């Protein structure tokens, strides 16, 4: 366990400011189109094969009480924000081995920025996320 804790602590020091800047410049309109790729498993307002996205930003991982997360997601301890989403979405299985999100990822940085920009708006939409 000490080894695992050390790994996590070491990993937590990585700086990834560039990804955050890209997310800040994302186009939410294009991001809405990118989000269509997610719709086999996710929706904003309902849990599906994947958890709902309403309220995503600032939410600790694996914190929805009515969704059955992977052990990997439960163990991660992260909070979803632009940076963590950017890293996860690039390659979910690499970023979080053991995640149920078996998807190659959104490889294009600008597409991830657009998707994150869309999610930032949509997951706070009062009409959808009541």
């Amino acid at each position, binding site marked *: 366990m000490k080894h695992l804790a050390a*790994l996590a602590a070491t990993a937590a020091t990585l700086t990834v400011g560039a990804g955050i800047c890209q997310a800040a410049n994302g186009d939410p309109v294009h991001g809405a189109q990118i989000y269509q790729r997610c719709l086999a498993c996710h929706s904003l307002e309902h849990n599906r094969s994947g958890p709902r996205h309403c309220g995503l930003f600032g939410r600790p991982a694996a914190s929805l009480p009515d969704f059955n997360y*992977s052990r990997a997601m439960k163990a991660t301890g992260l909070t979803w924000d632009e940076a963590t989403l950017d890293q996860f979405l690039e390659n979910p299985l690499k970023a979080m081995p053991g995640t149920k999100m*078996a998807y190659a990822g959104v490889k294009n940085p600008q597409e991830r920025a657009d998707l994150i920009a869309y999610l930032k708006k949509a997951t706070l939409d009062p009409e959808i996320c009541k």
Partner: protein
Amino acid sequence: MSIPPQTVPATLLVPPVRRSFLSGFGKFTLSATAIALLAGQERLALVGSAEAKTPNNDVAILNAALGAEQEAIAAYQVGATSGLLQKPVLDLAVQFQGHHKEHAAALAATVKKLGGTPVEARKTYTFPVEKLKTQADVLAFAAELEKGAVSAYLGAVPILDDRNLAKVAASILGDEAMHWAVLRNALGQNPVPTAFLS
């Protein structure tokens, strides 16, 4: 505009969960077996001999696909019993649901053959039924799910370790894409709006 750098983990999770998962599987000889199962050739499935590299990874991917297929089956059931679909659209929906059932059965069988446990269908699914008021609403909802399924398989194909499994996943992708095109056509939309899918 610049935003100060923040700290995030290099890897969002420490890897031991995966390791312990791996240790339970060991090696398998299921590459040809899996492809035969997914292709619905049970007899051939019994004689596969190629070695799969990391079945645990493929099991996770196939289970994710299975979960989506189960939800699609439930969604088509909602559409078919909504009273909103008229023949021949109703027949089409039932046919497409049958395809998803075939996909799900093949995926579940393959997960078992790979030593995994197939995910079970949820007892309940939440669909936006309050928004489904016309046949077009149901078709648009189904088209959205099918488009998502295409993207999901597109995201699965490159990461399946077993290339034969990837080939069959691509075959399912093609089926889902045809569903999407037909549904768009039924809605009066361009059935094939782009040269590439993502």
